C-alpha cells in the first residue's frame, strides 16, 4: 500500500483549541438534535440511524486494528459482547432512575469499554506474536471462547447474566445522543491517533513489521495498544446496543458479526477512517432498503467481499480519506520528502 500518493492542498491550519471547541459544540449539539429527531422521525428510521451509529463505532475501531495497524483480527464481536454484557448486566441490576440515568449510563459505557479493553489486552499480549492468517484464526478462537463463556454463565455473584437464553429486560436508556456522541468520540480518538506521530508507528507496523522494529518502533507495544483501544470502542458500541435493544442474544456476537464488521472495513478501504464510516452507513442502510430481498442480504455481503477482493482489494477509498481535517497533519510522505514536516514535528 502506498502512503497517500494523492496530496491534498492543505486547508489553513486552525489552532487546536478552536477545533476542540468546535467538537465539544458538536457533541453538545447532538443532544437537542437527538430530541428533535426522536420526535420527528418514524421509529423504524430512527432504529436504522442508531444501528448506523453503532456500526460506525465498530467499523472505525476495527479499522484501527485491521486497517491502520494491519493486524487482521476476527474477534471484534467478542469484545463487543464483553462491553454489551457488562453494560447490560449492570444496568439491569441497578435499574437507575431519574437524574442518575446519565451518570450511570456514562459509567456503564466506560466500564464496558474498559472491560473490553482488558479482554483486548489479555487476548492481544499472547496472540499478537502471531502474524497474518494465524493471528486471524487466534482472534477468531478468542471470540468464540468469549461466546462459550457467556453462554455457560448463568450469573456472576448476584448479577444475572442469562446464559444461553440471553439477557432480557435491560432498561432502555440509549438514544441518538449516546449513540452518536460515543461514535463521535470514537472517530475523533482514532483519527487523532492515526494521524499523529504515534500513528506513523501504527502505519509502519502495517507496511513492514520487521522494518518498523529495526527502526526502533516498539512493535509489541503499538500492536497491543491498537488492539486494546479498538476493543475499548467495540465494548462501548456493545454497551450502547445493549441498552438500545433491551435484550442480548449471545448468538448475535459470534463469528458472523465479526465478519460483518470486517466487511465494512474492507469495503471502505483498510486504513481509511472516512471509508469505514461510509461503508458502515452503506452496509447498514442498504440491506434495510432491500427488505424485500432480505434473504439475499448476506449473499450480497459475501459477493461484495469476493468481488471487492478481485477487482478493488484496496476498498472504496483505499487508505485515503474523503477530506483532510483542518489543523491535522496528513500522514504525508516521509519527513525527508517533505522538508517542512520536521519543523512542524518540533512545533
Amino acid at each position, binding site marked *: 500500500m502506498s502512503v497517500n500518493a494523492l496530496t491534498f492542498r492543505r486547508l489553513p491550519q486552525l489552532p487546536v483549541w478552536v477545533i476542540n471547541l468546535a467538537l465539544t459544540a458538536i457533541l453538545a449539539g447532538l443532544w437537542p438534535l437527538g430530541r428533535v429527531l426522536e420526535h420527528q422521525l418514524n421509529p423504524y428510521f430512527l432504529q436504522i440511524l442508531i444501528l448506523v451509529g453503532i456500526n460506525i463505532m465498530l467499523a472505525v475501531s476495527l479499522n484501527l486494528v485491521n486497517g491502520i495497524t494491519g493486524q487482521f483480527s476476527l474477534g471484534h464481536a467478542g469484545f463487543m459482547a464483553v462491553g454489551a454484557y457488562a453494560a447490560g448486566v449492570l444496568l439491569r441490576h441497578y435499574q437507575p432512575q431519574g437524574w442518575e440515568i446519565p451518570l450511570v449510563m456514562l459509567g456503564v459505557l466506560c466500564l464496558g469499554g474498559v472491560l473490553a479493553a482488558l479482554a483486548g489486552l489479555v487476548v492481544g499480549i499472547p496472540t499478537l506474536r502471531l502474524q497474518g492468517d494465524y493471528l486471524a484464526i487466534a482472534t477468531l478462537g478468542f471470540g468464540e471462547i468469549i461466546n462459550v463463556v457467556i453462554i*455457560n454463565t448463568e450469573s456472576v455473584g448476584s448479577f444475572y447474566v442469562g446464559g444461553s437464553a440471553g439477557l432480557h429486560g435491560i432498561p432502555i436508556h440509549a438514544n441518538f445522543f449516546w449513540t452518536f456522541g460515543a461514535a463521535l468520540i470514537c472517530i475523533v480518538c482514532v483519527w487523532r491517533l492515526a494521524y499523529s506521530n504515534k500513528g506513523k508507528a501504527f502505519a509502519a507496523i502495517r507496511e513492514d513489521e520487521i522494518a518498523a522494529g529495526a527502526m526502533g518502533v516498539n512493535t509489541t507495544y503499538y500492536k497491543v495498544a491498537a488492539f486494546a483501544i479498538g476493543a475499548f470502542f467495540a465494548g462501548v458500541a456493545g454497551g450502547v446496543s445493549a441498552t438500545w435493544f433491551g435484550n442480548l442474544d449471545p448468538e448475535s456476537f459470534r463469528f458472523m458479526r465479526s465478519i460483518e464488521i470486517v466487511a465494512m472495513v474492507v469495503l471502505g478501504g483498510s486504513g481509511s477512517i472516512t471509508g469505514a464510516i461510509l461503508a458502515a452507513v452503506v452496509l447498514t442502510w442498504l440491506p434495510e432498503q432491500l427488505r424485500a430481498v432480505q434473504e439475499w442480504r448476506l449473499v450480497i455481503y*459475501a459477493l461484495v467481499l*469476493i468481488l471487492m477482493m478481485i477487482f478493488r482489494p484496496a476498498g472504496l477509498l483505499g487508505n485515503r480519506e474523503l477530506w483532510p481535517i483542518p489543523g491535522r497533519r496528513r500522514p504525508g510522505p516521509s519527513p525527508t520528502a517533505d522538508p517542512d514536516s520536521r519543523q512542524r514535528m518540533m512545533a
Partner: protein
Amino acid sequence: MDQLIQQLINGLSVGATYALIALGYTMVYGILRLINFAHGEVYMVGAVSSYYLAEWTMGWTGSLWVALPIVVVGSMLVCSILGFLIEFLAYRPLRDRPRLVVLISAIGVSLLLQNLAQFPELFGPTPRRFPALIQSTPVFYNAAHTIVLTNLDVLSLGLTLGLMVIMTWVVLGTKTGLALRAVSFRFDTSMLMGINTGRIISFTFMFGSALAAVAGTIDAIRYDVRPLMGLLPGLKAFVAAVLGGIGSIPGAVVGGLFMGLSETLVKGYLPSAYTGYADAVAFVLLIVILLVRPTGLFGRVAPEKV
C-alpha cells in the same frame, strides 16, 4: 475402564472426520499458504449432496450395498467440482496478491455458500434428518453392553483409513503426487521445472474437497444436515491441522484424531456443569499450540527472511 474404552472409540470415530477435513486444509496450506476458510462449507455441501443422493437412491433401491457407494462417490464428485470452482473463481484471480486479500475472499466464499444453502429452494435453514438409508446399529459389543462399536464407527474409521491409504499412494507413489510435493516445497522453482502449478493446485482443491465430502457424508448420517454445520467442524479441523503442523499430511491425521479424543474425553469426564465448554477446548488448544510450538507436531520451521 469400560467407559474409558467407549470414550476412546467415540473419540476416534469423531476424530476420523476431523482428520479428513484437516487433510484438505493442510494440503491447500502446504501449497498456497492459504487458510481455505470455505473448506468447512465444502464439508457442508458434501453432507447436503449426500442427503439428496440418499433420498434419490432410496427411491429405486433398498440395498445398502448399492446405495452407500453411490452416495459417497456422488458427494465426492459434487464436492470436487465445487472445490475446483471455488479455486478457479475466487482464489486464482488473486494468485499474486497479499495473503490477507485471499483470506478475505475465502471468508466471502464461506459466507456465500452458507447463505445459499439457507435458501429453501436449495436446502432451507431447518436441520433435516438423514434419510433412513443406514441406521446406527451395534456391531461389536461386550456382554454388559458397556462397550459398543456401531456400524457408523466402523464406517467412519474404515472410510478414513481407506482414504488415507489411497492418499498416501497418490502423494508418494504417483507423478502427480511428486509434483504436488515439489510445488509445496518451492512454488516458484517447481514452476521453472515445468510443473503446471495451476493444474496441481486445482487437483489439490478437488482432492481435499472430496475428502471433506466423505466427512460430510459420515456426519450427515451420524447427526443431521444443517446449512451452518460446517462452521464448527471446519474450525476444529483447522485447529487439528495446526496442531499436527500445517502443511504436514500425517500431522493432519494425528491432529484430527487427537482433537476428537480430547473433545470426547472432556465431554465425558468433566462435571456436567462444564460440558458446555467442550466447544472451547479446540480454541484453547489452538492458542496454546500457537504460543508454545507454532509449527505444530510435525511442521517444518520456516525462518522468516527479510
